[in-house]
C-alpha cells in the first residue's frame, strides 16, 4: 500500500508526479451539489478505477476532468484541478479536451466511415497531411485491437460494426489525438463478456501510452484492471487506495460493505 495515495476529504492526496490532481473539488448542477470536496491524484501511466453505486457522482467527476460538464447550463465547479501541475480549469477548453480524451458509456461513432471516425480528431486539430493521418489511423486502430478486423473495410460505415467493435473504434478515435489521459465512463456496460475482455486487454496494453481513468460498476473489472481504485458514495470520495488494499483490506466500513455487496 502506498500511503501517499490515500485520498479522502480529511486527508488530501499528495503525489509529486501526479498526472491529474483534484483538490477540494466540488460540483453543482444548479443548486444540487453532486460532488463534495474531492481530493485525489491520478498516477501517470496507471489505471485508476472509480466504483460506487449509481448516482454517486462518478460520471460527474470524470466529466469534470475534461470539462465536458461545461456544455450544460447552470453548472459550477469549485476547487482546484491540475493537469501536470497546470490549472486545468483556466486552460483553453479545446486544449484540455485534446489532452484529456474520453470514451463514453454508449459507443457513439459518427455516421461516417471507419477511417473518417478515427481521423476526425486529427483533422479537427489541424492535421490534414494524408500520409500522417493514415499512419495515425492505423496505429490507433492497432492499439485499440481493431486493426486486423477492419483494415479491409476502412471506408465502410462505422455504424455497421458490432457493439464491441464500435466501442473499440471509439477508443481508437480517442487515441488518435494521443491524449495524455484517457477517461472511460463505464465503457463495457453495454457489451458481452468477450467484448469486455477484449477492451480490458487493450486498456492494459495502452497503459504505456496514456494514463487511464475508468468508471465501472463491475467490481471484478476494477479488481482485474486497476492499479488504484476509488470508491465514491453520495458525491464523496470515501476511499482511494491501491486496488489490492481496497479489495482485500479496505479501511472504511462503507467501502467494505459495498465491495462485499451488502449495499448498492
Amino acid at each position, binding site marked *: 500500500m502506498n500511503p501517499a495515495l490515500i485520498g479522502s476529504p480529511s486527508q488530501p492526496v499528495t503525489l509529486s508526479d501526479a498526472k491529474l490532481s483534484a483538490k477540494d473539488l466540488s460540483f453543482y448542477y444548479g443548486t444540487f451539489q453532486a460532488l463534495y470536496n474531492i481530493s485525489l491524484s491520478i498516477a501517470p501511466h496507471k489505471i485508476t478505477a472509480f466504483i460506487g453505486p449509481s448516482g454517486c457522482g462518478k460520471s460527474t467527476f470524470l466529466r469534470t476532468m475534461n470539462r465536458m460538464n461545461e*456544455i450544460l447550463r447552470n453548472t459550477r465547479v469549485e476547487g482546484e484541478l491540475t493537469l501536470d501541475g497546470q490549472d486545468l480549469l483556466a486552460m483553453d477548453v*479545446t486544449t484540455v479536451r485534446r489532452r484529456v480524451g474520453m470514451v*463514453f458509456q*454508449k459507443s*457513439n461513432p459518427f455516421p461516417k466511415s471507419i477511417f473518417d471516425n478515427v481521423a476526425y480528431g486529427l483533422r*479537427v486539430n489541424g492535421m490534414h497531411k494524408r500520409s500522417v493521418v493514415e499512419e495515425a489511423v492505423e496505429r490507433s486502430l492497432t492499439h485499440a485491437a481493431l486493426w486486423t478486423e477492419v483494415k479491409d473495410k476502412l471506408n465502410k460505415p462505422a*455504424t455497421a460494426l458490432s457493439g464491441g467493435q464500435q466501442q473499440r473504434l471509439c477508443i481508437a478515435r*480517442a487515441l488518435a*489525438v494521443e491524449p495524455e489521459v484517457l477517461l472511460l465512463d463505464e465503457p463495457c456496460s453495454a457489451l458481452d463478456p468477450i467484448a469486455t475482455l477484449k477492451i480490458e486487454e487493450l486498456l492494459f496494453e495502452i497503459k504505456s501510452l496514456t494514463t487511464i481513468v475508468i468508471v465501472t460498476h463491475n467490481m471484478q473489472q476494477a479488481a482485474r484492471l486497476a492499479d488504484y481504485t476509488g470508491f465514491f458514495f453520495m458525491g464523496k470520495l470515501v476511499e482511494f487506495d491501491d486496488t489490492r488494499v481496497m479489495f482485500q483490506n479496505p479501511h472504511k466500513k462503507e467501502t467494505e460493505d459495498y465491495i462485499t455487496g451488502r449495499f448498492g
Partner: protein
Amino acid sequence: MASSTYIANIPRRSGVRVLYDRLRGGDEIAYLVTLACAVATLLIVALLVGELWINSQPTVKTFGWHFLTSSRWDPNSGNFGALPFIYGTCVTSFLALLIAIPLGVAASVFLAEMAPPKLSNILTFLIELLAAVPSVIYGLLGIFILVPLIRDYLVPVLTKLFGYLPIFSGDFYGVSFLSAGMVLAIMVVPFIVSVSREVLLAVPTDQREAALALGATKWETTWQIVIPNALTGIFGSIFLALARALGETMAVTMVIGNTPKITASLLSPGYSIAAVIANEFAEASGDLYVSSLMFLGLVLFGLTIIINAVARILILTTQKRGA
C-alpha cells in the same frame, strides 16, 4: 398441472363468436380501419388524376406532347401551350428555395444550437405562427411592402452590379418573377426553420460530446457533426418548402404579373401554373380552353412528383456517400 386442465376446459365456440371475440381484441379492427383509410387516400388521388386526365382529353388530342413544349397561350385563337407556366412555376420556386434555404437553415442552427432555450422557444413560436398566415395576406404584403422595397432598393443595386447578366436586364415594373420568388421565399422559410430546428435538436447529445471530447470547438461540432447528422431531416424540410412553393397560388398571382412569357430576366413579369388555373378557369369558354387548364393541373401534379423524386434520389446518393 392446474393450467393445462384450465386450457382443456375452455368451451368451444361457434365461428361467429370467435370472430366477434377477436374483433373485440382490437387488432383486426385497427387493421381494417387503417387499411380503409390508406386505400381511401390513394383512391382520392387516383380519382383526381383520372378526372384531370379524362377532362384534358380534348387538349391531349389536339396538341399532344406539343402542349408541353409550346410557349403560345392565346385563348382567342385557340392556341394553348404550357411552357410559360411551367417555366414560371420552376423559376419562382427555385428562386424561393435559393433564398429560403440558407436563411432558414442558418436560422434553425441559431435556434437549435446557439440561442438560449427560452429565447429559442419564443422565436420558434413566432416563426411557426408565420406558417399559419393565409397566403392572401402574404400577397398583400408583397404588393404593398415588398415590391416597393425591391423597386427602390434591391433592383437599382442589382442592375448596377449585375445589369450585364441577362437575368437582371430590362425594366422593372414591380410585378415579376423576382417579386414572386421573394414572396414565396418568405412564405416557405417558416417550414424550413421549424422542421430543421426539430431535427437539429433531435441529434443525440452523445454525437456532440464525441466531437467536443476530441477537441473540436462548438462551431466545428455544429458544422461537421450535428448538421451532417440532421441532413436528411433538413432535406425533408426543404421538400416541404418546395411543395408549398410549387403549388402556391394566391400570393404568386398577386405579384407575378400574370403574363405568359418566357424571358431570362427575373425582373420581367411572368405566370405560373397555379396562378393561371385560378385566374382563368372561371371565365374559360370552350372545351379546349377548359381542357387545357385541366391538363395544366395534371402537369403541375406531375411536376411536383418529378421534382420530389429527383430530390429524393439526390438525398439517397448523398446519404450513401456520407454514411
